[in-house]
């Protein structure tokens, strides 16, 4: 997909669903880290304005009263988002945004209730799994410390699809120990293969449970989100 405008900063949209609550954090992070003003898109719009990339923020859309993201995945704006994805558009879904992406089948798998049954809020270390996507090549070679805060983050997928995803390099992030080894004892929610973030086949849609937008300043505990959000921006440049 061509960029909307080749000069100036990219046009990035952010969808607000009823119950989205990490929208302000995303807006703030993009402004401070990259000087980018996100375009706010209301869930009831049926068409997207011209954009280069799209963010689905975290929160509890519709209270997550069915499964996380299930009700939002059928909101009015979704067909336009699917069309954007179909054209190879770049999308970043964070936490609830990830759930919305799996629920609307833009990403494989499902996010089930955490294995230990409780909501969990903490910093995790993320390792970058093998793969050749733009994200992989930008992010490989180090560990990222990023907060998580969710009750339904246990990634599940059937074995065959998992194998295919691994072969195609669709796994991006895995929960790891601080040395960067994916590790069951570092797995906060029982995710299959410690999966914390996955990509679409074309490598342009990323869904992840951790919140890179919150790791936006050393004063907040980590600035590792900058690299991750930067890798997303790189996919639209």
């Amino acid at each position, binding site marked *: 997909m061509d960029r909307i405008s080749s000069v100036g900063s990219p046009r990035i949209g952010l969808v607000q669903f009823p119950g989205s609550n990490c929208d302000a954090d995303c807006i703030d992070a993009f402004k401070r880290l990259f000087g980018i003003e996100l375009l706010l898109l209301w869930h009831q719009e049926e068409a997207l304005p011209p954009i280069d990339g799209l963010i689905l923020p975290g*929160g509890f859309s519709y209270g997550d009263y069915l499964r996380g993201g299930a009700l939002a995945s059928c909101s009015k704006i979704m067909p336009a988002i699917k069309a954007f994805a179909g054209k190879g558009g770049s999308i970043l879904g964070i936490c609830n945004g990830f759930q919305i992406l799996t629920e609307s089948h833009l990403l494989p798998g499902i996010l089930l209730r955490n294995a230990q049954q*409780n909501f969990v809020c903490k910093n995790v270390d993320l390792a970058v799994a093998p793969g050749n996507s733009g994200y992989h090549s930008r992010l490989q070679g180090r560990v990222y410390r990023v907060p998580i805060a969710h*009750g339904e983050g246990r990634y599940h997928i059937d074995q065959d699809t998992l194998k295919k995803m691994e072969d195609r390099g669709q796994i991006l992030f895995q929960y790891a120990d601080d040395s960067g080894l994916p590790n069951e004892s570092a797995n906060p929610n029982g995710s299959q293969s410690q999966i914390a973030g996955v990509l679409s086949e074309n490598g342009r849609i990323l869904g992840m449970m951790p919140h890179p*937008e919150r790791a936006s300043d050393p*004063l907040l505990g980590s600035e590792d989100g900058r690299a991750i959000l930067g890798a997303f921006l790189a996919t639209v440049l």
Partner: protein
Amino acid sequence: MQKELLQQYEKLKTLKRAGFLAEEADSFQPLLKKHKINKDEYKTLRSIVERAPTLAELGVFSAMWSEHCSYKSSKIHLRKLPTTGPQVVVGPGENAGVVRLSGKLCAAFKMESHNHPSYIEPYQGAATGVGGILRDVFCMGARPVANLNSLRFGQRKHPRTHYLFANVVKGVGDYGNCVGIPTVAGSVSFDKTYDGNILVNAMTVGLIHEDRIFKGYASGLHNLVVYVGSATGRDGIHGASMASDSFSTQASGERSTVQVGDPFAEKLLLEATLEVLERELVVGLQDMGAAGLTSSSFEMADRAGNGLYLNLDYVPSRAAHMSAYELLLSESQERMLMCVEPSKWSDLQACLKRWELPFAIIGLVTDSGRMQIVKDNILEVDVPVAPLAESAPRYERPYVLPKPAPQEDRRLRDLLKSMPPIEVLAAVLFEDGDKQRIYRQYDHHIGSKTVLGPEQQGAGLLWLRSEWAEPNEAAYLGLAVATACNERYCAQNPALGAAHAVLHCYRSIAATGAEALAVTDCLNFGNPEDPIVMGQFVASIDGIGEACRELNTPVVSGNVSLYNQTDQVSIAPTPMIGMVGKHKDVRHALPAVATKPGPLYLLRPRKQTHSLGASLVSKVLLGEAGTEGIPAIHWQSEREAAAYLQRQAERGDLLAARDVGAGGILTALVKMVLHLENFGLSAHLAEGLSLEEASLAYFGECSATYILQAKPGTDLSKELVASDLLELVPIGSVHTGPALQVDGHELSHLRLQQSAAASLSI
């Protein structure tokens, strides 16, 4: 719609009235009793209504005059609290208190209890408690940025404790997480005084522009009264009087419909309310809290000195055939009452629709000075507004002031003489369990402001980055928040204990490098009709008042929760304190845990004393408070210690600071590295002392004492506090590697962490 309501209003006089209660009937006295209206109160009621009331009217009076809504037992004493100061923008009386942080940037905050509902249904009780306090803050126009919660449960081995704990924590977490407000600090303890009556106190802090503080009135003749939010069900009817009810274990099976919290609806209500206020679409707005539609409509009308006409047929309801009584008194959650000028109605409507909130016009502002409420063409309520509020009962209940008389208590000292300190330490450290069980379930990062959260173990600290602050302060301005109350101290000595609660918050705020600004409280006490309990209450107010005057932290909001008792046994006085402070530069924020190696110091009074009375070690080893006294307070020392911390933090010389509280110096010291795998410490606190003396120095509790960690290479002792009162003593250092040594005792991490794991099962 306005026209239609006006027409209805014109014809009001022709309507049939609901039946007046038959005062001679046998059922009448029991009915009054059920509504907790006593003889004198009924006399007043009658003189206001000028006839016998209808059932709905009786319900209205009962709710408005309940302890919960009217503060009838506490008001005369609350007046003694200091409430003013240059930082105070809005003092007590509004939905929340407001203090100025910098420039036009203010913090609105309040704390509230939800004790009884949480005991009956812990998950929903705790959740709706959080919802209620959030609404109090955002209906002033403030955007909530932090939640805190203070929890008190029965002993860990009490059969109900695990269930209550697990569900209260889940309820607090699920609600705050879903609305998207970080829970950045709190407190918890387990004590047998709460076996039959737990405490769930929730606090919210919001940010607001000084010129945009909203105090809503139902003003403007014929303006529309609009109901916004979830439909009304038969939830928590009598909630307001239940909150003032005491428990008996027998009655715990008999319940009205539980209130269910809907955090998703709350989030929509929050966004819609802030938008409505920002765009100035309404003249009045009030959340429907305790006593629901009744208290919100009366408050709104009373503040404007107006009357209201309401037609309950328009109230969205969830259950069939709800009576006027039920509609007026239901405590269904997530609802607001708004008052709008007809010209703004279409904008308001569009805004509410966008947020997918149900709404309905239910009435009009009138100049009658009366509350006139109709349902099914029957006039159900017709009472004057102002007298009802003005004549609310006030009680000067008899009280007996406590007279603490501490005495030496050898039992604990003898025990300490015979026990290895390391064993005592393990027991003390984990008495309240590992607090991760709580705060892991609370989102404490959302909002991207949390510089210090529960992982840093002290007060919460938010980085505000607000353009409303003074330009030279705006970039790194911080808001510090804390809550505390040591119920053991309060049981022993209510006045001094309450002062300690204020001090505890003050110290943990000072330990971040911030300056304390103001206080909110939540006064949890037993039955005020018991002169001893009332005496505890009065003494506590004195203690809080003294502390707040001495520390220059006025009380700007608060809440009173009485009748916390089971089977006639009242809880220990628990005046929970919440405090906010201002941090000038969050780049110099001090956590209460070590993050790097560096030298350690003890900042303490030159004449330090260690007290064992009502100490944590006494609770753990003796199973009771003992008879010795609790630490005395020396205000000047406290102020100097806090000022010293702020100064040193600002200079950038410090890495961490922790106030010494329950459990004494050794406990505080070990907690600074306990959760870190990569750091240990070596320190000397009581070398050369006898075991009894050493244990006293380790676990005795004290005042004006902090543990500081300096940046490596900084020698703090060079700039020793130039004070006659305080001294700074080097005690060792934090180093890399797990070894943990104090006075030659090896306190291996492993051992301690095992006890941490064991404490998981409450």
